[in-house]
């Protein structure tokens, strides 16, 4: 879903950049509360894993692919504030080193694929957590739904920017169904991958899944390392 340069006009790109900077500044401040001695190295791992997973495009319909965005996954594993920072790190590296996503479009891409997916994914995950019984299966199921919904919402965020300052004049009545339709399908892939990864981490180290802390009946605690 990486937006290249030239899809959006300059004022819109600048405005998106300002939203991204403000959002990330808040995330960086709040991430501190999530990052204790143990969570810090996990943040690097989550960024690296999301980068790797984003290289794995899977086919959705004929001639079209999708890939994990990873915002919901990152938020569930390391917490929403840290998770948004992790995905932003991925987008920054992709934009600067790999020419994946434009430089002037970096703000739009951070808003769509980091801030929006984390916000939607994490709120939905927590909402479902309140409704479902406390069990590992609930964590996995909530992860699937949260991740699956985050993708089409992120694609709508792009359409919102396009509506404000697209450089072309394609009617929204054409853009919305086309963008939304394919991203609903990609969202199913996002949900499956997210549920698989969250489920795997839950199996080996449930205490490392931030979003499971209030959902699991009794998380086995690792003795704290006092340094």
């Amino acid at each position, binding site marked *: 879903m990486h937006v*290249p*340069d030239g*899809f959006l006009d300059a004022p819109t790109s600048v405005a998106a950049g300002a939203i991204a900077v403000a959002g990330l500044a808040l995330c*960086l401040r709040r991430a*501190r*509360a999530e*990052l*204790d*001695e*143990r*969570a810090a*190295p*996990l943040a690097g*791992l989550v*960024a*690296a*894993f999301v*980068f*790797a*997973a984003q*290289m*794995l*495009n899977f086919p*959705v319909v004929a*001639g*079209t*692919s*999708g890939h994990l965005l990873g915002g919901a996954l990152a938020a569930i594993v390391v917490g929403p504030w840290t998770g948004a*920072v*992790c995905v932003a*790190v*991925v987008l*920054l*590296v992709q*934009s600067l*080193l*790999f*020419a994946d996503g*434009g*430089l002037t479009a970096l703000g739009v891409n951070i808003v769509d694929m980091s801030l929006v997916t984390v916000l939607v994914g994490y709120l939905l995950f927590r909402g479902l957590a309140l409704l479902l019984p406390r069990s590992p299966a609930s964590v996995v199921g909530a992860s699937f739904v949260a991740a699956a919904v985050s993708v089409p919402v992120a694609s709508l965020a792009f359409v919102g920017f*396009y509506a404000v300052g697209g*450089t*072309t004049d*394609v009617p929204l009545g*054409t*853009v919305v169904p*086309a*963008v939304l339709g394919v*991203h609903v*399908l*990609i969202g199913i892939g996002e949900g499956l991958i997210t549920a698989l990864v969250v489920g795997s981490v839950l199996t080996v*180290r449930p*205490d*490392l899944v931030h979003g499971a*802390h209030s959902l699991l009946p009794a*998380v086995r605690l*690792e003795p*704290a*390392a006092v*340094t």
Partner: protein
Amino acid sequence: MTRRTTAFVVVGLLVALLLAGVVSFYASDSPDGLERVASDRGLDAAEQPSGVEESPLSGYRTDGIGDDRLAGGVAGVVGVIGTFAVGTGLALALRRRGGEPDRRGRPAHQVDTGPPR
């Protein structure tokens, strides 16, 4: 960080290296959802190449390596190491140190059990 957590991070990193360095070769080459819609509907009429199009890793292909599999694999490995380094560095700079309490007054080494119920 305890030994078990170190092991988890190391194994996780190896999985990421394997995915980006090897498995990525088998990923779909088709345009992604947005690229596809953009080219089908003409949203990309004013698209411009990225300012870093000349980067040696542009498009996840490493310059100077003829073999497709290797050119993509090297780019993937560089990306995984780069994102891990930046992510870990940032997190270490931000984290709460030793005895510094968090917002709820709990010490840093105590496990977060989520919001109070």
